[in-house]
């Protein structure tokens, strides 16, 4: 480990041993360079423990879930429903039946938007009502609301951003009004790392009787998540960013709402009884899980949750905070580098976006890649943020539990090389 004078005592850092759990971190690219993986906000790597759970599922227990009396079907069902228990505990859900498995966070967010479009009063979103989001949302928390607004005539409003990358809540009473039916916002920005203040927003939403959906895609992997403490009505996140497989997402929703709201996709598993003339629906969560669910992926997500919990989500948060603090300090020393988003480690996650002089992020990313450093460049599915700050794109380095100060150092050296290359 690098010498970190003063700044990092190392005490908050997780050990390097964690890296051994992640096979991909041994990957060598471009003629002998060991990968420096700093694209964690896009997706995380998977520990051996998760891959083992997937393999064991497929090799020993694979069957379709529910409705089966044979031993494999019972085992697969127990594993799948056991994963639901694990996720429920991980987010402190009052009931396991409030945890719905989807294919990704995007489906979770769309699910809520669609439910509200088809709902009866008092939930129904229609031409006389409003939807509130923010300018720092991921496209997956913008486009579903644009679609809903187009389809129902509801008005879409949003919170703007301050110059230092935070939500501008100064006009909260105009953005969230008596007409607002749903407020949907991200807990942590995937592009700027900003951690948003939930309390003020939730309080205002409750005041006007609006539902609250929190996009926790960038929070669930990185910090303790307690859906009860958040006070939201729905919370969405995605498995692949939190050491789980691709192909699995989660929507948590309050029981009463899940009972009252209409289903989204129709099909096997989500029904109680079907005739050609009409059907009745199973209680939640099954009501919202049409078709064969992502069984192996749920099992893998359960293993990921076990893995993260064993390490401890607060330890992970502390580790990332220390790395972020160090990274911000070192990045601030790079000439011509401008951070887009909060420039201190307070109330921010471990995704750091920046621009480097007038070198286009594509070029930054490409030259870093040749050195084995994987960052993401572009608008990070948050183009309104780029528009807001008048930039075409950013370079984003994002850290996770296996990131080390040495990764930061490699990034800084890499950026030096970029500057020389285009200087």
């Amino acid at each position, binding site marked *: 480990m690098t010498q970190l004078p003063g700044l990092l005592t190392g005490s908050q850092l997780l050990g390097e041993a964690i890296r051994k759990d992640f096979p991909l971190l041994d990957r060598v690219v*471009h*003629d002998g360079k060991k990968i420096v993986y700093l694209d964690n906000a896009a997706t995380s790597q998977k520990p051996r423990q998760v891959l083992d759970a997937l393999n064991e599922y497929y090799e020993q227990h694979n069957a379709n879930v529910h409705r089966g009396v044979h031993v494999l079907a019972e085992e697969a069902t127990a594993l799948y429903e056991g994963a639901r228990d694990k996720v429920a505990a991980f987010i402190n859900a009052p009931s396991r039946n409030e945890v719905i498995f989807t294919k990704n966070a995007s489906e979770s967010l769309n699910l809520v938007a669609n439910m509200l479009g088809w709902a009866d009063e008092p939930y129904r979103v229609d031409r006389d009502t409003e939807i509130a989001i923010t300018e720092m949302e991921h496209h997956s928390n913008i486009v579903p609301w644009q679609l809903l607004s187009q389809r129902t005539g509801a008005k879409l409003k949003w919170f703007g951003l301050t110059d230092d990358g935070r939500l501008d809540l100064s006009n909260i009473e105009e953005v969230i009004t008596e007409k607002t039916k749903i407020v949907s916002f991200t807990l942590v920005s995937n592009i700027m790392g900003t951690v948003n203040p939930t309390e003020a927003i939730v309080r205002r939403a409750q005041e006007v009787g609006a539902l609250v959906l929190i996009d926790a895609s960038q929070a669930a992997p990185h910090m303790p998540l307690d859906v009860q403490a958040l006070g939201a009505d729905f919370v969405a996140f995605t498995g692949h960013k939190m050491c789980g497989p691709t192909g699995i997402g989660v929507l948590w929703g309050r029981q009463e709402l899940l009972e009252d709201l209409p289903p989204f996709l129709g099909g096997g598993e989500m029904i109680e009884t079907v005739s050609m003339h009409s059907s009745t629906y199973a209680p939640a969560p099954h009501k919202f899980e049409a078709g064969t669910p992502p069984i192996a992926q749920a099992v893998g997500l359960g293993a990921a949750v076990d893995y993260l919990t064993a390490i401890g989500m607060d330890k992970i948060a502390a580790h990332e905070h220390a790395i972020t603090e160090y990274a911000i300090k070192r990045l601030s020393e790079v000439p011509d580098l401008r951070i887009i988003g909060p420039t201190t480690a307070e109330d921010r996650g471990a995704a750091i976006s920046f621009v480097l002089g007038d070198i*286009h*992020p*594509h*070029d930054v990313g*490409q*030259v870093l890649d*040749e050195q084995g450093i994987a960052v993401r*460049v*572009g*608008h990070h599915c948050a*183009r309104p943020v*780029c528009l807001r700050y008048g930039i*075409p*794109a950013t370079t984003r380095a994002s850290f996770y539990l296996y990131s080390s100060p040495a990764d930061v150092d490699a990034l800084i050296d890499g950026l030096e090389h970029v500057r020389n*290359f*285009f200087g």
Partner: protein
Amino acid sequence: MKLESMYQELILDHYKHPRGRGLRDGDAEVHHVNPTCGDEITLRVKYDGETLTDISYEGQGCSISQAGASILNELLVGKELGEARKIQEVFLELMQSKGKIEPDEAMEEVLEDAVAFAGVSKYPARVKCALLSWMAWKDATAQALGDAERKTA
């Protein structure tokens, strides 16, 4: 460094010293965006009969897309439409070759400086950057000629 096969001196030079940049009078204007990275170009074409007399442009984006526009300008302006189209096809073929075409002399004769992009074809994410201005040119030309046809019709 392998990367240098992509960032040829020639490309960096066009990037740093773009030829023919700026918007001038034209017969048609298009605005193209590469949605995957936000590269943008506004491009105008001017024809005198079949002769392409100007390609003027403004844009922002990475070195590859900006150098691409500069090279496009240098290579096509002054050419007859038929010849310009042939050059465009050869360039497209090179860019879609996934690094498998090693430009020979014949190709170099057609593409001139643009052969420097051969290395880019190995990077699928960047091929679109390289093609941005070429696609914009094609589109603008179709519009200009469509208008011309409509006028004569």
